[in-house]
């Protein structure tokens, strides 16, 4: 297995190629542009096709078309671009199309800035577009996870016939880090009896999502709901860090999840029993992770790069039995591990014991 130094966005591109992604449709937007650039240079060598679309809407609808044929397909963009894609994501979710959508989150609202942010949490985890649907959301926190979760995203998309969002940020996307280019794990066998690829020797197939009969509409919604419940049951993923004896918990994902690990280590040096839950799936939210702690820990701090979005899911997960506070930076700013610890100490009135 090769270990190489690569930029975060390029890692996503390489992982896509090694996941058997055959078509990519994108549109340049900072800080995600290296994904389309990398794939433009490398994907054709592996028999794939990269097309720079006329716009984000074109790109996502090209993904919709490609996914209808059962071809592994990906697109990548950043926040304003992902907003433009929402209609297409809604249609893709309704038809049940496997595809991977990368959002290298920039800070918003509006045009915003290019710095790291997690301000698209609500958009990502609540469907994002019109109608009641969900996309699976994976949140990497370092280079190796950009690689591994991209591969995981393709398999989950196929397994559940659902769009999967890889939610990263400009910091992860632009940073060069070593990554082990693991060979692709065996892809799960998937049913392709639904794809539209020409009715050769079979009945014609239709992939569409309209239901002009209310009864059919409700039946469709129930089918999707059952799928989402199945995903919620089976696909909650998270990482725990020093949680076993924790009196206080940090909850954070992505780049801040990584910073929080340093905070935990610093706290432990001071004798503060701090732990971390780092959600890997943001939808389904890993509420199971909180079960052992909701009657046990004294307090929780979510660390986010927004006005406080994931904190709602944390409060729901602990059924408001534990005080949950928010430490956040915004607009492209990152917190240091020290300011997070200061906040924890001040919020809970912890007198640090030097050990």
């Amino acid at each position, binding site marked *: 297995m090769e270990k190489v130094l690569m930029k975060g966005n390029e890692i996503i591109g390489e992982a896509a190629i090694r996941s058997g992604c055959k078509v990519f449709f994108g549109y340049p937007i900072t800080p995600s542009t290296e994904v389309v650039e990398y794939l433009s240079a490398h994907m054709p060598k592996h028999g794939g096709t990269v097309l720079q679309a006329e716009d984000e809407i074109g790109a996502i609808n*090209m993904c919709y078309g490609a996914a209808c044929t059962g071809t592994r397909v990906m697109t990548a963009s950043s926040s304003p671009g992902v907003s433009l894609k929402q209609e297409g994501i809604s249609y893709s979710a309704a038809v049940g199309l496997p595809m991977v959508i990368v959002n290298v989150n920039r800070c918003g609202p509006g045009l915003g800035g290019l710095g790291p942010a997690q301000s698209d949490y609500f958009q990502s985890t609540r469907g994002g577009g019109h109608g009641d649907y969900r996309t699976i959301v994976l949140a990497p926190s370092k280079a190796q996870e950009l690689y591994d979760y991209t591969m995981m995203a393709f398999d989950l998309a196929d397994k559940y016939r659902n769009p999967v969002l890889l939610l990263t940020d400009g910091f992860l996307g632009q940073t060069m880090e070593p990554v082990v280019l693991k060979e692709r794990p065996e892809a799960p066998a998937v049913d392709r009896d639904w794809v539209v690829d020409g009715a050769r020797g079979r009945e014609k197939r239709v992939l569409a999502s309209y239901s002009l009969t209310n009864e059919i509409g409700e039946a469709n919604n129930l089918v999707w709901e059952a799928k989402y419940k199945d995903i919620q049951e089976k696909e909650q993923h998270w990482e725990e860090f020093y949680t076993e004896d924790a009196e206080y918990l940090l909850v954070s994902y992505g780049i801040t999840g990584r910073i929080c690990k340093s905070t935990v280590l610093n706290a432990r040096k001071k004798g503060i029993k701090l732990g971390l839950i780092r959600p890997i799936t943001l939808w389904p939210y890993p509420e199971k992770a909180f079960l052992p702690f909701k009657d046990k820990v004294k307090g929780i701090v979510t660390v986010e790069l927004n006005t406080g979005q994931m904190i709602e899911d944390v409060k729901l997960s602990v059924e408001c039995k534990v005080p949950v506070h928010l430490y956040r930076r915004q607009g492209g700013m990152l917190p240091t591990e020290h300011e997070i610890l200061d906040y924890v100490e001040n919020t809970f009135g912890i007198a640090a014991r030097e050990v």
Partner: protein
Amino acid sequence: MEKIFGRSKGLTDVPFSFCPGCTHGTIMRLIAEVMEELDIIEDTIGISPVGCAGFSQNFFSCDFIGAAHGRAQAVGIGVKRSLPDRIVFTYQGDGDIAAIGTQHAIHAAARGEKITSIMVNNAIFGMTGGQMAPTTLEGMKTTTSPYGKDVSTTGYPIDLPRLIANLEGAVYVAAVSVDSPKNINQAKKAIKKAFQVQMAGLGFAFVSVLSTCPTNWGISPVDSLQWLRENMMPVYQMGELKVTEEVKSL
């Protein structure tokens, strides 16, 4: 006796859901017959967005995809780029391809995407109940131009085939009509050519078909044909607007 006219294998046995006298059905018949004659029904994937065209999946016997409003060509390009040996066509109304989805039409043509697009131009939004389209004629009354379309505030009708014909990647562009038996037969020839262009991998093929909307025009089906001839044909350039040398030699 020999059957000289009947329903094409390219159609399912589902009756069209269009209003009486609407010539959408005529255009669908022509596409179905062309697919059958070229023996490509099993190789073809059709795409239609919303609007009256949005029911197409029920009527064609080939595989079909329903797309979002305006996005049929983008979806079709996704299909074609994934399966280059299949035949892909889009079936779109003027309210779709000449308004909400125009960017995809322009760029599909510019890139020479190897798909076939059929535009049904009846100068109005049909499914939503007769609103003004970018193709609505000057002075024409619709529910959103109740006093007649005022071009000084709402603009002039877009002649999309003329725009498309200017783009290098479009190799066959035709504007036809289905108002009379002669024109219907000409329309079929153009549609057939547009599929043959794709089969030969030559580039983007586009056929605009003038069609009626008796319900929203508020006139009888027979009078609608006359209205189309008198009012639409003088505004929209008709005939084969672009036939490249390669296409001529097909």
